[in-house]
């Protein structure tokens, strides 16, 4: 049977669209884990990236930190933390957050640094306090880049959140993990298709956010 056959078999299976192991439930769980992890990553990375980018200090330290964090194996971290802390949401969140912090942090820093210095000079000379310069001048101008950093973090979280299933959490990873242990390839393929679709939906969401939040003056000025 080919991959399309497996997928069709998966999506046509009885009870697939309802119940505790139905697609809507698993999708919602996956979105919840991913959303929470992204939120935590943003709360950590955005302020640090914005402030260091604004002041221009700490760029090297950030780069080292980001490289180190990227080297962390998500799955290994999950298993290690679960052994240390037992089953729970924290061992799931830590690897996901660690995955998204570096792209958000580094891109935000770079985005803030790439704002035309004469713009900041003009804003200072006009008498804007530093926090207004940050929030009302640098942030709106850097926003397209910052959004791209959050987007790559979000997509990585969405694709990796499948590992939650290994430690008996839900989410779309459930289908993949269960499918593998039950030798049910239709389930594995179906789960993979769903994860990939969610990643694409995330991409679309950020495209929409860009349209909504980024000023036309910045968007078309590039």
């Amino acid at each position, binding site marked *: 049977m080919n991959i399309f056959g497996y997928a069709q078999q998966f999506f046509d299976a009885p009870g697939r669209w309802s119940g505790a192991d139905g697609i809507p439930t698993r999708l919602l769980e996956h979105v919840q884990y991913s959303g929470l992890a992204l939120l935590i990553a943003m709360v950590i990375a955005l302020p640090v990236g914005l402030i260091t980018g604004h002041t221009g200090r700490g760029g090297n330290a950030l780069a080292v930190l980001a490289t180190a964090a990227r080297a962390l194996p998500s799955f290994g971290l999950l298993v290690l933390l679960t052994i240390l802390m037992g089953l729970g949401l924290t061992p799931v969140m830590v690897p996901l957050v660690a995955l998204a912090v570096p792209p958000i942090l580094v891109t935000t820093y770079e985005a803030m640094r790439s704002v035309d210095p004469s*713009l900041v*000079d003009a804003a200072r000379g006009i*008498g*804007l306090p530093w926090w207004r310069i940050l929030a009302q001048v640098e942030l709106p*101008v850097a926003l397209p880049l910052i959004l791209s950093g959050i987007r790559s973090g979000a997509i990585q979280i969405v694709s990796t959140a499948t590992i939650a299933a290994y430690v008996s959490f839900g989410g779309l990873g459930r289908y993949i993990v269960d499918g593998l242990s039950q030798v049910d390839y239709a389930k594995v393929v179906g789960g993979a298709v769903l994860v990939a679709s969610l990643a694409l939906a995330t991409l679309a969401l950020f495209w929409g956010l860009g349209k909504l939040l980024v000023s036309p003056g910045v968007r078309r000025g590039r």
Partner: protein
Amino acid sequence: MIVIDAVTKRYPDGTTAVDRLTLEIPDGSITVLVGPSGCGKTTTLRMINRMVEPTEGRVLLDGRDIREAPVNALRRSMGYVIQHAGLFPHRTVVDNIATVPRLNGADKRAARRRALELMERVGLDAAFAKRYPYQLSGGQQQRVGVARALAADPPVLLMDEPFSAVDPIVRKGLQDELLRIQADLGKTVVFVTHDIDEAIKLGDMVAVLREGGRLAQYAPPAQLLSAPADEFVEDFLGVDRGIRHLSFFGTDTLELTTEPIVTEDATAEQFGAAAVPETPYVLVTDAAGRPRGWADAAVRASGPLDGPDGELLPYGHAFTVGRDSLRAALDSAVLSPTGWAVAVDEEGRAVGVVAQESIAAAIRGAHRAGVLR
């Protein structure tokens, strides 16, 4: 009045940008800081709104040390215009201009109304209000920059090479606009440029700075041209400072001759009668009195030639009596193949002609009166 009092700016690497500079900048006039790159003119300007803090000395605004006021309040009391305008790309033109009024607590509608007023003042069509900076030309962006600086009606305007990134024609337009606005508003303008012609055109007072941030001369432009303090200033002014100096002298005292002016429908006799001994040429005007060109009186007197003005010699350009300077009159005479300058009134009608020799006499007269040196 802004007083720069024995101000020095030294950087940690040991370079001295400004060296014990003292300047009194009078209210309600344009003071230009000019000099080669590295002379500390921008640093000096930036010490007035505390973008740069002096190492020694102090800056006084109306007798008070500027460090006494909160820094952002100080900056909001001074308009600030920079080279590439530094407009906020994410804001529309009207919102860019409304920035400082909004900062000062004006509500959105009042600030926008004020911004629209300012747009008119700087010569920007209201149709630009909703555009973003990237949709404007360099000159238009700079007009928005000036409008933004003026929006909160600050008494002081600091301008850091505002017009040096635009082409010469646009620059001239912006300079004229600034002079027009200044005639209306009477701000205390401190203007930085490396262009001595710009300094002479705009400045009521010009401070020439030399490398290392030392003051070479501080004088009104006419005095700068007539009596440069030293070789450095003389060099910086360039070779044709004598000619440029003439732009400070009016043309109302020039003796104009109206005799050799005839309308194009004049008879051969009238052409012959109009000729003066000094020149074989007469100036031909149209029926409204606007100059068309020079004609050889003797040839015209012997009968009309083919074509309406095919045989007329071009007169170059005319100068407007009263408004244009002696420099424009001399230039007009030099350009004219007959050696005579054509004078017109505000409506462009020829009111007389004047020979190079008469202009030279007027210049000699100015020397005798001691206004030129």
